[in-house]
Each structure stands twice: as C-alpha cells, then as structure tokens.
C-alpha cells in the first residue's frame, strides 16, 4: 500500500525537488541521495539491489571502444552512461528491474520484457532524450520524452502496462 501510494505520487508529481544552491540545500540533497541509495541497495525495493547498476556498468564498459558490434557501432559515451544512471535513480522504488543493452549509435537501452510482443525499450541519448518504443500485443506505442530529472509519466505508464498481468 505504501509503495503503491509512493509510486502514484511519483507518477503524478515526480520526485525532483526545486534546485537550491545554498549550503543547507546541498546538505539536504546529499542526505536525500544517501537515503535513496540505501533503499536502492535493497533487493526488495531497489534497482541497485537487483544488480541493474552493475549490469549498466558492464554493458557500457563492453561498448567503450567503437565497432563493439562488428558492424562499426559508435562507442557508448560517458554522458550517455551518466544519464542512464540518473534515469535509473529517478525511477520509483519497487519498480521492475530493466535489462541493459546498447545500440549501434552508441545509446544505451533499458528494456522491460515479458515476451517478444510485450515489452518496452527505452534508449538514452547523449542530449537527454528518452526514445521509447513498446509492443503491447497488437498495440504499439513509441515516441520521445525529454529527461529533466523525473522519470516521464508516459514511460512509467508503459512500464506498468508491460508488467501488468
């Protein structure tokens, strides 16, 4: 119940606070990050505990050098890796863990998968765009959402639809 309420609040309002530059604001941000990471480390609630960040690092590391796919793929940049980390941290606690991949243009992908015709793939661009495409049986959804620190509602909705029984 608490997790559902937290998720619905995040769906509606997101989790990013108004930015602050004061010493107090920076202290609050650091404490919040520490608390969030602590929860992210848990297997039950966090993507950290489920190994997603390790997988992200492993994939990015495998694609550091160009032509990692044998067809001339572009390397995955540090910017893309950092944005992917940020996006994962912006996801609500308790959300299903995605698997990580990479595309020939050097963008990292996060995939929520139930079956070949029930999945969502999100590409992280170096400019901070989230390009998504989902197959939900006979239905298709695809588009682009800008990432400003909050996980976009469109993408959260699609994750829930992919995971729904």
């Amino acid at each position, binding site marked *: 119940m608490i997790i559902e309420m937290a998720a619905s609040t995040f769906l509606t309002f997101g989790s990013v606070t108004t930015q602050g530059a004061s010493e107090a604001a920076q202290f609050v941000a650091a404490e919040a990050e520490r608390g969030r990471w602590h929860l992210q480390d848990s297997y039950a609630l966090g993507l950290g505990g489920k190994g997603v960040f390790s997988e992200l690092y492993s*994939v990015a590391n*495998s*694609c550091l050098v160009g*032509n*990692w*796919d*044998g*067809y*001339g*793929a*572009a390397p995955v940049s540090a910017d893309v890796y950092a944005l992917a980390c940020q996006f994962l941290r912006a996801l609500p606690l308790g959300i299903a863990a995605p*698997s*990580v*991949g*990479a*595309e*020939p*243009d050097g963008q990292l*992908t996060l*995939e929520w*998968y139930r079956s*070949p*015709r029930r*999945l969502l*793939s999100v*590409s992280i*661009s170096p400019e901070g765009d989230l*390009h*998504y*495409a989902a*197959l939900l049986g006979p239905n*298709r959804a*695809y*588009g*682009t959402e800008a990432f400003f620190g909050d996980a976009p509602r469109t993408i959260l909705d699609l994750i829930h639809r992919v995971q729904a029984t």
Partner: protein
Amino acid sequence: MTATDPPLAVTDAELLARFILFNGWFRKDGTLRQDGFMPPPPDFKLSVTRHIDLSDLALWQIGQAVADARPAATLHGRADLKVVDVKRQTLQVDAAPLPENLNHANIAGWPPDKPAQKIIAIELAASARFVAR
C-alpha cells in the same frame, strides 16, 4: 556476374542472417533484442547476409570472418529473418555484394525518426529466430 553469384533481385521467400557479436543482443530465453536490429547512422543500412545457396558451414564462416575483423570478438550466433517479414515493416532488402561476402545485403528504407526505427526493430526481433553458434 558469374554463374555462382547470387541473383541481385532479393525474393520474399529468402532468409537473411544478422550475425550477433554482442552478447547483449539476445536474451537468456533465446529471443532477440531490438538493439541488434537498429540501423546504424548515418546511412541507416542494416547489414545482413542472404542464406541462398549457402550451406550452414559457409554461413558460419562468413559470420566468423565478421567476428575476426574485430579484436577478441565472439560469434555468439545469428538472427535468421524472412525477407517477407522485413517488407511487412515497409523496409526493403537491397543486394550489396562485397568481395568477401557475395551474399551481403542491406535492409534499407528506415524512417529517420529514432522511435519509429525502434518499433520496427522490435517487430523484426519478434519475428526473427536466434540460432546459437
């Protein structure tokens, strides 16, 4: 063109192979991720090999040559897909023979928009079959 060269016109009944060198392109359940079917910029031509006239051994040799061109690469397998499934996504298959691979072809005609490319790649991955090495 010699008598042994594959015909330039690609028919709907043909099978195409996309060699998989990256282990993130197939899932543990043996299905394929869309990542391996995304066309690379800037020309958005997806490189494949036509099956016609090739034995399984010859096909794997071509795949191994692709892997050998990249240091420490592993040929994990290939994705087999039908030309008819490619055309169903309003793409085209153009024969593009190379000296080292006369059966080489490109899947072209992709939309320029990335999300539109992704949804097509997801459909191709869903219709393709992973054949492990």
